[in-house]
Structure formats: C-alpha cells, structure tokens
C-alpha cells in the first residue's frame, strides 16, 4: 500500500526505520496531488523544489546519524494564510496574488527546523472569512467525500488535503471555527489550541484577538505530535503565552477517561442541528461513558449571543487589519495611470482586489467601530465576551471538558448557502464560543450521518492552558470509535482520482 494512506506517526516510524526516504515520501505525495487535486483543488501552490530540498536534507542528516525531530521528513500542507519566505502567499485573495513574503512565520520556522516537508499552500476563504472555502478568489475546494460539496472553511484546503491523502499533516488557522468545522465535514482532526499557545507572528491577521494557528491531521496522535512542534512561547508575539506546552502527545496516548466529567452544553446540544449529526454525537457520548467518564449537563446561557458578538468583533478587527492592503508597498495596484491620486488608487485597488464577503465584513466592522456606534456594537460585543468567559468558567467547575457537535450540519452543496450570509454564519454557532473565550477546541470524527453518509464532527472544549485534556478525551474517544467501527473512518472515504 502506498505510504500516503499511513498516519504521520506511522510515516515517522517508517522514515526512522529507513523503509522509505523523505524524498520518496514527498514524491509519493506529489504524485497523489497530481492525480486528485484537479478534482479537489486543495492546493493553490506547490513548492516541489523547496519540499524536495528539505526532504533531501533530512535524509542526509538521518544518514549521518543526527538526532532528528519525530516528524522530520513527514509532509505537510500549509494554509495560505501563513507567511512563507519566497513562496506565494495569497490568503485566498486577488489582492495578494503572487506576493512572495521576505520572511517566514514563526510556525513555518518551527516546521522547517523540525524537518517537516512543506509541500505547498492550501486554499482558503479569502482572508479566512468564511465557512465553506467558496470565498476564495481562486475557486472553491471540493470535499473529498463528495466533490459537489464544500470542505468547510475557512481552512477547506487544509482539511481536504488530509481527507484526500494529499498530505498527512496540515496547518490551519481558526478564528471562529475555521480549523474545526472543516475537520468535522471532512472526517479529519483539527485543533484550535488555547489562544496564545501558538505564535501568530506571520499569520496574516483576520481578527487578532481570536485568530490562532493549529495542527490538523487524520488522527488525534498525529495532531498532538504536530501541536508539540508548533506551540510554545514566541517573543515576537506579545500575545504569546509563557507557560510550557502541555504534554499533549502523552495525553493523546493515555486512552483513559475514567472519572472524568464530560459536560454537554445544553445550548449546543442539537436543537436545530441536523438529526444525523445529533445521533452520531450522542452515540459518541455513550462511548465515553463506556470508557468510564461521567456525562453532566451544563448550561451556558450567554452562548446564544456568541454569534452576534463574533460578527461584530471579528469584522471590526478585520476592518483595521486589512487596511494595510492599500497598494502602496505590496500586492495589487489598480488604476495608477499617473494622474490619479493615492487615495483613488487605494480605493480602486481594494474594490478590485477584495471579494464580496471581505468587503461586507470590512464595511460591517467599520460601522461597528465608528463614532456613535462603538458602544452599541463593538463595545457591547466585548461585554458579551466577558459573559461567555464567565459561562465557561462556571461550566468548568462542573466538568473537566465540555462537548458538542462541531457543526450543525454535514457538508452542504457548493453554492447552497453562498447567497445567504446569515445562514452561512450559522455554521459557526458551536465553534465560535471557544474563540471568544480563548480556550482550546478540538474536532474529531464521530461517524457518518445516516441521511447523507457524510462525516460528523465531535467537538471537545478544554479550559484555557489545558489543551492536553482535549487530546486525552479525543484520543480515548477515537480509539473507542475505531474499535467499534473496526477501522478508522477515513477508510470509508471514496476513492479519488478517477481510476
């Protein structure tokens, strides 16, 4: 069997046992991409040269007996919102078409230092704004489970690349669910660590107080291994936490939840959620009970305001973060005919370079911050944030972790919700509270919905700075479900590549 169907942990073992070289492993993945990505469209850019150079270097070091990071030589897909030196970084936008950054994000530096082989940049909703990757200026990505459906968003490219076996590891970013919701609808694992656990230096900002980069993979253990590579304090990021990275890999291997209290959030327990989603979620709860955990019900009444608060805070910060795209120093410039003034060129550029959703959110954010409206909108939203944090605080006195279905539905059809922004925003209803409070959230697959045989995601939320709890519960649940199913869920994914 091709190595591409292995987990990252298995590939790591194989590489160390010299069953395969990093170069061959990279090429196997490039072959796979060549075979399926015309259909999936997960990638915006492939860096064959850089990837093979890195792979060669890892092989040489291994041959020389150097001590290497566990994931050295394992391929990875990088969401195109992360800055990578010399490689086109577009954030899914026309305004940054062909922009090659002169520096690396801290996450990228750490990946490179760990010997991880970055295959290329993955597709995303423009500037991370969206839940379906339909807002990419470069065309949508297609869900490997059903190519007519969305792979989630904003990090649809990363999740699809995993589900299509184009890479065993991926980096995503999550502001309101952009790692977790794609993971849910593609049957993969995605983690948004505690805010501040992973450096934001080099992560093109959407909403600074909510953004967080995180690890994505097909298994909980793989995700944990990647987590340990990228997390940790960065002096270049003032919001970076100083506490040491919790031992997430050992937590993922614990496979024990005896005595743990699992809190089901009443407000996220499935009212208005797709029936099949709730069914798989409840069955997963039963597995946790079988494994020795106790289910408790908790109520977080202010969660009903989370969506509204999010759709004020995030666009407000975004309207400011995206102001820098003014055509003066980098990126697209439109209308500079030698007669027009700078302001006009800025305005024409931004008209041409930003897509509809981005413009919508910039205008919304500008409004929410403008004088006369600040208190009613942005100011109120920040208060709701306090209330949500208090709800979590109270809930975590009753439970060790909280759980919910990750998303209200399985993957919808491409185009189905594209013209209804409010309907689209509802995809994030269960994931947003996590970002608002700055705590950690994980999504892992808990089955296929009976209506449509599409993946359902199970969300685990842990208190801030205790990301290891997510991996502990997630790892245990994954093992229990795999045992119940007889094989990992991904083995049910349709074959791709036409043949």
């Amino acid at each position, binding site marked *: 069997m091709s190595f591409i169907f292995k987990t990252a942990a298995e590939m790591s073992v194989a590489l160390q046992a010299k069953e395969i070289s990093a170069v061959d492993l990279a090429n196997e993945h490039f072959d796979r991409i060549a075979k399926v990505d015309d259909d999936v469209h997960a990638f915006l850019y492939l860096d064959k040269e850089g990837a093979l150079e890195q792979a060669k270097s890892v092989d040489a070091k291994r041959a020389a007996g150097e001590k290497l990071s566990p994931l050295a030589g394992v391929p990875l897909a990088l969401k195109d919102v992360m800055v990578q030196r010399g490689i086109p970084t577009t954030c899914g936008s026309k305004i940054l078409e062909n922009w090659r950054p002169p520096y690396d994000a801290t996450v990228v530096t750490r990946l490179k230092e760990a010997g991880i082989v970055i295959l290329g940049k993955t597709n995303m909703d423009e500037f991370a704004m969206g839940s379906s990757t339909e807002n990419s200026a470069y065309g949508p990505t297609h869900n490997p489970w059903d190519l007519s459906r969305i792979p989630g968003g904003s990090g649809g490219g990363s999740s699809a690349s995993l589900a299509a076996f184009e890479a065993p590891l991926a980096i995503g970013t999550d502001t309101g669910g952009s790692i977790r919701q794609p993971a849910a609808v593609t049957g993969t694992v995605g983690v948004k660590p505690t805010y501040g656990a992973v450096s934001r230096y080099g992560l093109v900002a959407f909403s600074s107080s909510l953004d967080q980069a995180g690890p994505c993979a097909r298994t909980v253990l793989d995700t944990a291994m990647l987590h340990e590579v990228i997390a940790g304090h960065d002096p270049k990021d003032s919001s970076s936490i100083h506490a040491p990275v919790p031992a997430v890999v050992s937590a993922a291997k614990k496979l024990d939840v005896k005595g743990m209290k699992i809190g089901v959030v009443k407000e996220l327990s499935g009212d208005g959620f797709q029936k099949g989603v709730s069914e798989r979620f409840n069955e997963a709860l039963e597995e946790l009970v079988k494994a020795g955990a106790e289910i408790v019900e908790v109520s977080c009444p202010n969660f009903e305001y989370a969506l*509204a608060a999010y759709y004020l805070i995030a666009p407000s910060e975004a309207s400011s973060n995206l102001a820098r795209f003014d055509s003066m120093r980098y990126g697209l410039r439109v209308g500079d005919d030698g007669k027009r003034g700078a302001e006009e060129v800025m305005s024409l550029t931004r008209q041409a370079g930003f897509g509809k959703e981005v413009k919508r959110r910039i205008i*919304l954010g500008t409004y929410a911050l403008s004088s006369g409206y600040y208190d009613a909108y942005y100011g109120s939203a920040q208060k709701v944030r306090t209330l949500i944090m208090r709800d979590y605080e109270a809930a975590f006195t009753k439970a060790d972790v909280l759980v919910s279905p990750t998303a209200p539905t399985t993957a919808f059809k491409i185009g189905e919700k594209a013209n209804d922004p409010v309907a689209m925003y509802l995809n994030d209803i269960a994931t947003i509270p996590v970002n608002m409070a*700055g705590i950690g959230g994980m999504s892992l697959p808990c089955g296929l919905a009976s209506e449509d045989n599409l993946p359902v995601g199970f969300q685990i939320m842990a208190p801030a700075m205790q990301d290891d709890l997510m991996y502990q519960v997630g790892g245990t649940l994954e093992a229990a479900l795999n045992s119940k199913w007889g094989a990992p869920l991904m083995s049910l994914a349709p074959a791709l590549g036409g043949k």
Partner: protein
Amino acid sequence: MAAISREEVAHLARLARIEMSSDELDHLASEMDQILHAVDRIQEAASADVPPTSHPLPLKNVVRPDVVLPSLTFEEALSGAPDSDEQRFKVPQILGDAG
C-alpha cells in the same frame, strides 16, 4: 435599530477606502441591514456593569529590550513594491494632509 441607509454605506465605503458601484452599494446596504438585525440582540445581553474583555489572556507588561536586531535589506523591503524608485516606494501623488 434603524435600517442602514445607502448613504451610510457609501460613507463607510469612503472611510474604508473601497470604491463601490451604485449596485454594490444597494446590495451591500440590504445585506448589512440583515446582518445588523441579527446582531442587534447583543444589546439586550450586555448590561452596564459588565466589563468588556478585549483580551482572553491576563497578560501584561510584555516588552523587549532596546537592542538592535537585523533589518531587512532594502531589496527585501522593496521586493513586493508595485513601483519603486531611488530605493524608495513609489506611490501616486498624495493629495491630502495626514490625518
């Protein structure tokens, strides 16, 4: 809250330096309206005595020492510039004063 008018959207587009066609303004005004109605409800949640949270983390006093670190070369700095001249970013004429 009242619906947002096309004029208000035009004003916001100006503040945000995004040129918009007449159609775009109309369309956006109606979308904004929908969204604002959906988010209006937070005002019922946020009472006066709840303090706002702008940061999920209780961090403070994060500083760095006053020590020079390497800068980009000017080639790197200018590498993305749509236009440059004399080692500087070349931009269309600036008509107004700074804010």
